[in-house]
């Protein structure tokens, strides 16, 4: 069996990129970047499978690994928090050094063994794949490996149920529905609760912001029309001062109007507190 020139080119293009992406998994600071690197490795592996006369496995690789497994990884990453990055504190002293040493050692041992070993001359799968790869695989899978296939089916079902059980959360407090919320609101009416939503903040000629209180029909500022947070921080603006500022502008620019709009001004009294 001879390897075609196209496959050689494909291998030498993909292999360095795959190693780089795998190193990306090792060194990427963010988990999402690592996941993308692994997706690249898996898609490249699928291409290599197809080049190696394993068309069925290539398709399964894409569907199962990049399509299901890696998407599951990304889902869990979103659930756990995308920003969850590694801590750089070594809990075991010298762990990084020992780990790199062991990794390099394992790699050199494996590569050395493969380089030393003599392999039989390659046969190729042209004969075995005579009636297409999936059909030939199915003949083996459903003849020699029927029992293993059944066991693997049971394993998959068990794993699915296990995942359901593991992520199941028992409800500790009774569910609060629409009905319960409305009952609670009505019950709270006696202690000064509100049935309606809180009033919106005030809109003035010169001010339209979250920190300005609205005025009620009597012209008094409504306290809870301003966000509770702003009130606690003391960042609420006083309605009186806004009105006074607006009145000053009016007096300055439209003196003839002031008599109509602000009768107390025209009379010469200054009773701001009344408003």
């Amino acid at each position: 069996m001879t390897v075609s020139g196209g496959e050689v080119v494909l291998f030498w293009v993909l292999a360095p990129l795959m190693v780089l992406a795998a190193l990306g998994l090792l060194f990427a600071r963010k988990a999402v970047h690592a996941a993308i690197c692994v997706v690249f490795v898996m898609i490249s592996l699928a291409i290599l499978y197809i080049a190696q006369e394993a068309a069925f496995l290539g398709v399964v690789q894409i569907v199962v690994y990049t399509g299901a497994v890696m998407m599951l990884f990304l889902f869990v990453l979103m659930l756990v928090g995308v920003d969850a990055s590694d801590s750089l504190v070594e809990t075991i002293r010298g762990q990084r050094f020992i780990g790199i040493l062991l990794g390099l050692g394992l790699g050199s041992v494996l590569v050395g063994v493969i380089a030393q070993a003599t392999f039989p001359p390659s046969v190729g799968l042209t004969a075995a794949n005579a009636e297409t790869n999936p059909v030939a695989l199915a003949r083996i899978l459903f003849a020699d490996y029927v029992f293993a296939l059944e066991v693997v089916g049971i394993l998959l079902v068990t794993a699915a149920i296990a995942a359901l059980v593991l992520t199941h959360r028992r409800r500790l407090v009774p569910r609060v529905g629409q009905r319960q919320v409305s009952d609670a609101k009505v019950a709270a009416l006696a202690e000064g609760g509100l049935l309606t939503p809180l009033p919106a903040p005030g809109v003035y000629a010169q001010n339209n912001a979250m920190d300005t209180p609205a005025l009620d029909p009597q012209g008094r500022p409504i306290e809870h029309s301003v966000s509770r947070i702003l009130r606690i921080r003391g960042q609420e603006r006083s309605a009186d001062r806004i009105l006074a500022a607006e009145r000053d502008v009016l007096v300055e620019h439209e003196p003839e109007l002031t008599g109509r709009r602000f009768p107390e001004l025209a009379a010469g009294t200054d009773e701001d507190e009344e408003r």
Partner: protein
Amino acid sequence: MELTNYLILAAILFAIGATTVLLRRNAIIVFMGIELMLNATNLTFVTFSRMHGDLHGQVIAFFVMVVAAAEVVVGLAIIVAIFRTRRSASVDDVNLLKN
């Protein structure tokens, strides 16, 4: 080109996956390292299958994929369960039995 080049690539990927498991502390990245190792063995299976002209290697690789899928489901469920109780996905924080 010899088919051994594929085996060497698989060996390198396996070693990188193993190093990831040893070095990283984020449980999800550790898990991806395991996936990388499983994929590297699959590449070895497929290459040997082609070398010997025997499709049994591809069937075994198929089983490895199925088992890896089941493993991912359970493993990620465990990670999510741990994250819910401990608010962390770091393997260093799961040391409740230590003290």
